[in-house]
């Protein structure tokens, strides 16, 4: 593989952002991608990896500018081409798959039309030939019934299917270079494994060179031939991916690897749990949760759909119980029923003491963007009578310190904070009423792996300090493994397997659990 010529070669590339005050985010990096290989670019968010990828297609956001260096592709310097010359290269020679397949597709056009548009732009095929080609490509990326899917809109497809559409779109013109920017980050772990396999297959079948960008080392491990580790706009390490995994040379790479292990490792921070276990803080007996779908025809009754199909569960004081399963299995619905956000339920939910607090997945969407952090944290306190303004403010400052954020943050808005900081705020909000029991719904799924590790550490510390009980919901087996004493595996609204985390991970009995465990990237 090493003897193959370079397809893409980047030399001394610098990228700056900002109109008046320029800030350099990528500092003179150089690397090359050989014909037919898969090169992984790894780094946490803000390391400049996405910016570098976008600059290859000259798609930098407003204010972004290549300030130095060349990008050689097939004998052309892409930085010197005019916009009209770039238009011919985009999609045809180099194409791109983005992180979030929902927002990356146009919501008001059918996915078929969006894939076909590529051929309309870059080929001289007739309308009939284009359709056939689209169907064929859809089949190739693993979409059954392409004729049916052609006329679907993005919101009618699942996340995995949407990402397959994105890949079909990027591959249909048989580009020589495919840039994949975190293509699996927004997906469930089972679907993630399938998408990675698909990319590998396309690489082998068509010889497409792939530039794969990710924050997750475990994802790139099996896929990529070579790796580049980016930190703060500079390459800190590069080489064969096997070597980097076995002998990381730089501290930062070691840190990344260690962070990946915290998330996927169990040994940390589960001490002193069994000692404090006493009686049940939550008892669920044969719980069924429904939600209503409006009828399709005029005289049809509204349909009640059973999402959680008879679950019994006990959570003891002081323990952490994990609920794991892929999206759509009913785990979030269960959490909402427990916290009282859904009332259409059958069966019994016995809660000891007050209603549990909840931390949601999306730390941006669940914080009101027009309110300051201080206000957001104070709000639950206002509902409790008998606290003066000063007492409330004191409590806010106290909790900010507990989640390791400076107290000045109370004057900021959610948009001023990074994803990890926002999630700390969400946790602080849940903790400010000093609850005994907290339900965490995918609290780290939207975060980078290094930030994930920090937030998990924080949760562990808070648990010890306040003697909390957690019900921890996640699709990520690694996270569950590191956080929970017991785990319940949910599949299609039912608990298919339960037990001590260690036992379930070492001896899974149910097929679905085995499948979940095997798709964890190792």
């Amino acid at each position: 593989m090493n003897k193959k010529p370079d397809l893409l070669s980047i030399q001394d590339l610098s990228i700056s952002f900002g109109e008046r005050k320029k800030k350099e985010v990528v500092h003179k990096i150089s690397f090359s991608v050989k014909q037919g290989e898969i090169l992984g670019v790894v780094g946490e968010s803000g390391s400049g990896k996405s910016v570098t990828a976008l600059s290859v297609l000259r798609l930098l956001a407003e204010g972004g500018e290549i300030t130095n260096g060349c990008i050689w592709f097939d004998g052309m310097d892409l930085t010197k081409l005019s916009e009209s010359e770039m238009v011919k290269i985009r999609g045809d020679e180099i194409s791109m798959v983005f992180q979030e397949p929902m927002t990356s597709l146009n919501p008001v056009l059918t996915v078929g039309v969006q894939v076909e548009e590529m051929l309309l732009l870059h080929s001289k095929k007739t309308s009939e030939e284009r359709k056939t080609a689209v169907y064929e490509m859809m089949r190739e990326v693993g979409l059954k019934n392409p004729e049916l899917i052609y006329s679907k809109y993005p919101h009618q497809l699942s996340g995995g299917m949407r990402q397959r559409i994105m890949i079909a779109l990027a591959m249909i013109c048989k580009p020589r270079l495919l840039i994949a920017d975190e293509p699996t980050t927004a997906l469930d772990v089972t679907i993630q494994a399938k998408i990675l396999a698909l990319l590998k297959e396309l690489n082998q079948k068509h010889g497409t060179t792939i530039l794969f960008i990710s924050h997750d080392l475990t994802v790139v491990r099996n896929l990529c031939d070579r790796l580049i580790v980016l930190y703060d706009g500079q390459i800190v390490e590069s080489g064969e991916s096997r070597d980097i995994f076995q002998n990381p040379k730089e501290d930062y790479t070691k840190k990344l690897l260690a962070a990946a292990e915290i998330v996927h490792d169990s040994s940390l921070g589960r001490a002193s749990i069994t000692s404090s276990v006493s009686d049940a803080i939550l008892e669920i007996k044969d719980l069924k949760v429904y939600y209503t779908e409006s009828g399709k025809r005029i005289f049809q009754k509204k349909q009640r759909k059973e999402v959680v199909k008879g679950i019994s569960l006990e959570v003891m004081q002081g323990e952490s119980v994990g609920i794991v399963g892929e999206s759509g299995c009913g785990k979030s619905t269960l959490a909402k029923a427990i916290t009282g956000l859904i009332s259409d339920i059958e069966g019994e939910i016995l809660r000891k003491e007050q209603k549990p607090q909840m931390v949601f997945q999306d730390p941006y969407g669940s914080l009101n963007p027009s309110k300051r952090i201080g206000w957001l944290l104070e709000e639950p306190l206002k509902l409790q009578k008998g606290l003066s303004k000063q007492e409330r403010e004191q409590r806010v400052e106290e909790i900010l310190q507990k989640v390791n954020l400076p107290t000045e943050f109370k004057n900021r808005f959610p948009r001023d904070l990074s994803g990890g900081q926002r999630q700390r705020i969400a946790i602080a909000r849940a903790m400010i009423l000093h609850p005994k029991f907290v339900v965490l719904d995918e609290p780290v799924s939207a975060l980078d792996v290094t930030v994930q590790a920090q937030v998990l550490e924080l949760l562990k510390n808070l648990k010890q300090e306040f003697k909390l009980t957690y019900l921890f919901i996640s699709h990520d087996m690694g996270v569950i493994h590191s956080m929970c004493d017991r785990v319940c595996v949910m599949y299609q609204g039912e608990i298919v397997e339960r037990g001590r985390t260690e036992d379930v991970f070492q001896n899974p009995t149910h097929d679905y659990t085995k499948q979940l465990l095997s798709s964890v990237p190792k």
Partner: protein
Amino acid sequence: MKFYIKKLITLIITLLFVSFITFFAFQVIPGDSAVAKLGMDATEEQLFELRESMGLNDPMFVRYGRFLKNAITGDFGTSTQYNVSVGSLISERLPVTAWLAALSVLFMVVISLPLGLLCARKENGFLDRFLTFLSQTFMAVPPFFLGIIITLIFGIVLKWFIPGKFIPISQDFGGFLSYMVFPAFAVSIPKVAMLTKFLKTSLLRELSFDYVRTARSKGLKKKQIMTKHVLKNALIPVITFFGMLIADALAGSIVVEQVFNLPGMGRMLVTAIANRDFSVVSAAVLYIAGIVIIINFIVDMTYQKVDPRVRIS
């Protein structure tokens, strides 16, 4: 199907409600058709007799029921002011107002769409700033005042049309249209200003979304991205706003008809209210309400066409 039936029922209920409000309003305001017809000097006896013969002395709900029964059969009675049937009165005037409104809506679309696109493509360019300034100004000017200015500039100074003149449709359709253009401009220009600004904001918002980046990565040119991808998305909020503006344009045309001396529904309505000519007022109000509701229905349908996410399954 369910959707259409729902809409139809809403339409009927709204019309009933409007008819009752109109009827009730006429009970509350002082004076009635009898007073208007006989003048202020009429004796109480004369008034009583005329009221008796017109059925105005019956209880309110009886009169409302009678009015409703007649209205359903399409008979709005006789205008007390002109002594001709309301039906024929309206059939003469409705086309004038309908054409005025239609032309105004046409101008609104044809002018604001390209302007909005232009402003969004060259944000903060000279043209954008100039148009933003213009639209701020025109938004603040009421249509009747604009009507006066247009009459002054195009009628009196440039002599492109004779102020106060009107050519009936039956006589010369081309001439009719050419005389409608100026009042239509007076109605539509403030709305064009609003629509342009709204569309521009919506386009700029859409431009920041991820799918635009995808479209660029596909190799689409900026212009193609605007027309093929962004515009359809950006139109979604604009359509709702547009529906409200159409209703507003109808209301605006009532005043503008006065300024340009057009024999449309608006002028008829104003004189009819002054003369307490209830039959004419109620018919006119019901017609206008009906048109507004139908336009809203069309807007709802278009909305669904444009945004697949709200499509009924």
